[in-house]
């Protein structure tokens, strides 16, 4: 039978993550760089975006831990293994520092996000780009089917 079924599951998981991550990062960037409409985003909306990013970072930190950690069951989110693997490949040589950076960004997101730095935004943007790359690759594999 065709690979399409499994690829569809993978595509959906990657595309959903890429879309949500990008949306949250765009909102953070609009506020951080004071772009048009950035200050008009309702507080509740920004809180929701930050919470989403915290949840994603929690999952990623658990996945990158030397021994896998139990992820809280109430989280309905997941990160495709291929995306975790991409992150692992990119940061293989500096994983300890990268994990520290992720944890720091998470802490600053939890403290209403006002302390976020440009490097933090770039780190989150890089994650969104990684999810987008993974989605594009799975899509290309579906295309070839």
């Amino acid at each position, binding site marked *: 039978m065709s690979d399409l*079924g499994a690829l569809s*599951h993978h595509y959906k998981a990657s595309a959903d993550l890429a879309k949500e991550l990008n949306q949250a990062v765009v909102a953070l960037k609009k506020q951080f760089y004071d772009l048009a409409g950035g200050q008009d985003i309702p507080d509740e909306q920004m809180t929701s975006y930050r919470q989403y990013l915290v949840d994603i970072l929690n999952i990623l930190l658990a996945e990158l831990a030397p*021994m896998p950690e139990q992820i809280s069951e109430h989280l309905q989110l997941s990160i495709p293994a291929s995306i975790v693997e991409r992150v692992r490949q990119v940061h293989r040589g500096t994983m300890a520092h990268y994990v520290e950076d992720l944890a720091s960004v998470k802490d600053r997101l939890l403290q209403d996000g006002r302390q976020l730095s440009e490097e933090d935004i770039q780190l989150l*943007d890089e994650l969104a780009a990684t999810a*987008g790359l993974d989605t*594009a690759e799975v*899509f290309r594999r579906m295309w070839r089917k």
Partner: protein
Amino acid sequence: MNDFLRGLFYDLMHRCQMLCALLEDREHHPDVTGYVTQILDWIAQIEGEIVELTADPTLGTPRLLANNLRDYRLRAQLIKLLEWFPVPAVLRYGPSDHYFFALMSQAAKQIRYPFPVPIVSALSKDYYWSHPDFNLLGVPALEEYSLLGLPDLFHELGHVVIHQRRDDLLGRFEEKLKAHFATEGQRVRNKQQPPQYKVILERVQEQWIDAWMAEFASDMIATYLVGPAYGWANLRLCSSSLSDNIFRPGPDDVETIHPSDDARLWGIVKMLDRLRLETDARQIEQRWNDYVALTGHHTPPDYEFCYPMALLENLAQSVVRGCAGLRLKAFTKQTPTSGNINIPILLNDAWKEFLAQPDEYPQWEENRLAELRRSLGV
């Protein structure tokens, strides 16, 4: 780039409108009228998102250009998928598709399928397939005139079930899977095995989570629903040389989406055992071992890293629990009914007949298919 990006979004919007026009300008078969509405809703949702994105005054600003391009690509991909799968399925919907939809509708009642019955497109050039996101299945043309391969339709249905209830079916198993590979990783470190073992384990785990778990689980759901017939159909498929080596992918080439034929067969056997269909399980196992001997293929080194039997057993347990939770009716609970033909029983009768009297099977099958058509009213 700003103008170009804006142009891309407008072009995409135009494609949405063309797809809608294609669907709205014709009369559809009653089987798919609801499905057409669903496709139009999907397109409308994408169109709405494009309107929102293009109305944003920050579209194309240098700080957000890469993000905007990502947004465009995601919508463009979805429109392409709609254009390639659901839209042609309804535009070319004909008597063969109707036959399969009627068949699936009857089977859905018999297995107590709790979700909308998928649309089936009978024009597949790629054997059976499913697009769970679009509730769409694909079947090759000749399957309309045969019973032996039809169990594979239930594998594809399994993908749709997983799409609908992934966490219920696979959530706990995924945790066990990760714990298993973490323990294996620790064992590799303790034994001071070469570093490539760590890489193999990481790649195998990735494949399990992103692809193999769903494939094994779909095999097991199909076995839960149609019993031994699925095992035999799988053996038949393997015999037609779908893969070059029944033990591939192994540790050296894990990137393949489907797990090895050998591991899949053992997953099916585990499910048959769990359903207490031990006699059938042993018969299929025996024929498989005969087949393996004939192929001359051998298990590659470290093959067991990829497909631990304990994980397959664990997955079978999770799938049975998940299917029971959805109140899906197992094959072992099916009973012959007067009136409508029971599809899971028919598929198993077909395989019994094929195995008992292969030379007389074609005539038997022709008669049963004629009865089935009458029963389905097609």
